[in-house]
């Protein structure tokens, strides 16, 4: 069965995120002063064949650990779509 996986990779909250800061300043300049704590990450979508949603999730987690996220600087969440 083919599962679609949505991976969300974000810079670790304790680390400086200059992209998030720049976007926050730009939003403020456009009049959206209410936007705070802006952070910029990365979304990755992929499809994979697996026997079950659990297997799909386990494989996708391995992909995140090995390549898609850097364990030193980033955290990830993933969602498996049936």
């Amino acid at each position: 069965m083919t599962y679609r996986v949505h991976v969300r990779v974000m810079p670790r909250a304790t680390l400086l995120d200059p992209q998030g800061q720049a976007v926050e300043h730009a939003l403020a300049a456009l009049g959206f002063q209410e936007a705070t704590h802006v952070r910029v990450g990365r979304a990755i979508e992929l499809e994979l064949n697996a026997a079950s949603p659990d297997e799909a999730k386990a494989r996708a987690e391995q992909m995140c650990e090995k390549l898609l996220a850097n364990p030193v600087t980033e955290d990830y969440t993933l969602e498996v779509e049936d």
Partner: protein
Amino acid sequence: MLRAAVVVFPGTNCDRETVRAAELAGAEAHVVWHRERDLRGADVVLLPGGFSYGDYLRSGAIARFSPVMEAVRRHAADGGPVLGICNGFQILCEAHLLPGALMRNARLTYVSRPVRLRVENADTPFTCEYRKGDILVMPVGHGEGRFVADAETVRRLEGEGRVVVRYVTAEGEPEGPASPNGSVNDIAGICNDQGNVVGLMPHPDRAADPAVGPADGAGFFRSMIHWLAGTRAR
């Protein structure tokens, strides 16, 4: 004669100056394509700067899985000297041959300018020609050079003398907010716990030929020769 392997990935663009710098120091340098699995008798591995795999995903993240990296890993595990310059440093961090990571510069801009470095560890295969405290000037050219690591790793790097070079001002003080990229503790280069794997963001390869400018970086390449000959400069 010392044999240096200069590894080229798709997108590497500092291989020529790295070969030239090694040759000027008196080494024989050969280029190894990233699909190769054999370093062809290399005594030293040099990972040059550039944009391997277009910096896709993260700088160095994909190069890390090239076939040649298994040979580089074995060479390093056997105590062989490895130097990563700029993108080479990023690859070594992604490959976990060095701790930490290199993130987007704090002010987001690509920084291309000379920097002042202080030698903090003159006991590696690439810095033994210098003296601790020497001030060197050489260029940086990077968008993702902000060295980060967790507090415990930084404490260990500092405590074990594994910060090899640090960004400093003309007075020799840490650059602080003026640093090119916002690295923690102004760290510009580090080594592994054995000292044989060294990575730095600045480019000694671009400051190694007195015919075209200052040559403060030439010592990195002369050091490897003296280190291997067992005739330490000092």
